[in-house]
């Protein structure tokens, strides 16, 4: 099973799966955020992805770029906080790479994720180890690049696993960006909520590719 390219249906399936997983983990994400932020990450992400799901229902699926753009614009206008612009940027940058394509192959997926990461870092001015979503997305892209010999689904599963490890590795870090940075040393010992939701998003991508 699995496939070597993702068409519009698969991308929509990915986003629907992500909406489901994020909805299920709303409380968990909010709890992570309550420890070092302002207790709104779960609610914001759940609200945003629920809106995306609604928007995608009426979307044609022959242009992956257009789908990703809809996702990005919807997240941008519904999530708010810092996550809205950051996840919005991820999808908008990815949409530029995938514009006009009916399906995206391995190389396009990698370029899209890399462009998204660059956009997030430019927008949020975050570096690796600042205790942000960059710490999940960065290792995931590296793992995906390094899994050249594997099938697409396996490579994405590797990427998701790297994201999980990256999210967990944020626990001892002292935050240097975002609201958690106000806590200084007190932010250490908690997993970053943004890195965690990034992992959930990438895990959904791997699942969608495996089906």
């Amino acid at each position, binding site marked *: 099973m699995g496939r070597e390219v993702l068409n519009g249906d698969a991308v929509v399936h990915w986003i629907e799966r992500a909406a489901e997983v994020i909805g299920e983990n709303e409380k968990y994400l*909010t709890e992570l955020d*309550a420890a070092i*932020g*302002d*207790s*709104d990450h779960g*609610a*914001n992400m759940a609200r945003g992805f629920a809106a995306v799901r609604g928007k995608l229902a009426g979307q044609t699926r022959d242009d992956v770029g257009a789908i990703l753009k809809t996702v990005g614009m919807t997240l*941008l*206008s*519904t*999530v*708010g*906080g*810092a*996550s*809205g*612009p*950051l996840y*919005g940027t991820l999808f908008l940058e990815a949409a530029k790479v995938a514009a006009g394509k009916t399906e995206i192959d391995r190389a396009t997926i990698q370029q899209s994720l890399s462009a998204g990461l660059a956009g997030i870092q430019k*927008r*949020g001015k975050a570096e690796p180890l600042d205790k942000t979503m960059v710490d999940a997305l960065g290792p995931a892209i590296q793992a995906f690049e390094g899994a050249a010999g594997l099938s697409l689904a396996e490579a994405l599963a590797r990427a998701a696993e790297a994201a999980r490890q990256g999210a967990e590795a944020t626990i001892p870090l*002292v935050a*240097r*960006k*975002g*609201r958690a*940075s*106000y*806590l*200084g*040393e*007190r932010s250490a*010992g908690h997993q970053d909520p943004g890195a965690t939701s990034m992992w959930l998003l990438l895990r959904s991508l791997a699942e969608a590719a495996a089906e």
Partner: protein
Amino acid sequence: MLPDTKEPPAENPAGGSPVPPATLNAASMVSMPAVPPIVTTVPPIVATIPPIVTTIPPIVATVPPIVTTIPPIVATVPPIVTTIPPIVATIPPIVAPAVRAQRFLRLVEGFFFLGIGQCAFGFAQVLVNELRLRSRDVRPSLGRHRPHREPCTKHGNDEERANEILEHEPPFLPGTCGRQAERQASPRAGRSHGSLAVSILRRHPRPPPFRLLPFPLAGRASLSVSSASMKKLLNAPSDLVKEALAGMALAHPDLLRVQFDPAFLVRADAPVRGKVSVLSGGGSGHEPLHGGFVGRGMLDAACPGAVFTSPTPDQILEATRAVDGGAGVVHVVKNYTGDVMNFEMAGELARDIGIATETVLVNDDVAVENSLYTAGRRGVGTTVLVEKICGAAAEAGRALADVAALGRRVNEHGRSMGLALTPCTVPHAGKPSFELGPDEIEVGIGIHGEPGRRRAKLEPADRLTEMLMEPILDDLPFRAGKDVLLFVNGLGGTPLLELYVVFRKAHELAAARGLRVVRSLVGPYITSLEMAGVSITLLQVDDEMVRYWDAPVHTAALRWGV
């Protein structure tokens, strides 16, 4: 207040426009049970017993033969003895062993040293102690009280070990910091809670003379504070902001218009042709900031996000478009990661459609260390002053770059710091964002219910005012002989009566540094839902700022000169 001081609208009798409390109430009116002071008196009681316990072991060793003579004595005080058992039964096991041991030893002590009369007295004393414990039987339950997990300023920062102990070894006294807990816990690994109670008791000196407390205690109610369910005037959390906006539109049709999807407020006559517009926005929950400042002479538009969540770029873009009169729009942005990014994107989008924008970033909170390793200082009280002064400058016809430059100058000359007496509850979260013991405060608090810089003990208002004013005055740019505007702000749950007490002391402290308080503002203008607490903002003003501060303003929350 000084003769030239502008009256805050909260006490402004001028009719027509509702005062800020009304605005606040519309958004979130909250009644949280006040923490009864009784709990604060508990530690001394706990301390009553130790000296006796410590002195007894040698005596016990010598006593055995005497003990045998006790039964007849017990028999002489039947009424007293009989009253004890039910009381003992109500005391949870944590305390009981200590109490029983103490009662026994005190009995022995009394007999040994003072004979039968003293022994009877000892019994009476035991009974009294029992009654005291009974009357304050909040104490064992305080074992479930969650001691704070923040670093304690007095005992350092060794949180890991301390928290571990707090985690696994309750109960501790209320307000026990991690380090104290560690000390209490360290010598007695594996002992029962009973011996833990003794070891805690031992460390405390003999208490002040006994005062009988009313019985049964009203203080019991305080036990449920931390788990109290949210008590707010709301229908559904997801409708809160929308419904409050609808209320504002109905309450102030002469001042503002409200638009939904995306949500924003604009002044009633927007766009004003040829005038620079001033727009601000941020999470809801800070009312009257920002919507209460929309009107003539202040904000042209406000973009409210969800509670404590910044607005989105499309909201800001649409509001920018709605108020642009052709002369450009100034965005007043509080320095929070989310706000900065959303306004940044909105600014880029506005530029794409040909609207000139300038951003004034407010970062005045001296509680946050300003370094490369944080998101920088937060924007708090100075935001109100920037919005007023920029709004007046725009109303006076100043150009976009001038209004923005003036706003930045105000930010550079303003410094703020706040403290919280109670936390606040975000409706979606349903529980307080942090917990404070009955006698604890959070110093250096922001406006989003996030924990502050450190935790401290509640002290008299003058001392707390010093705690805020000293870091403000020590920060640049205040110099003796300069004029300042002093702004004492309520965080939502603190009455004006208390704010004026703080103002009085803050005024005195500013004067002591040679600063002349030439303008003032007192009231809840930038709040944190129902949080009780205060923030102080000091702005070193120049003539231009004072002129624009005095200029007419007509909004829901600030109104003068009209």
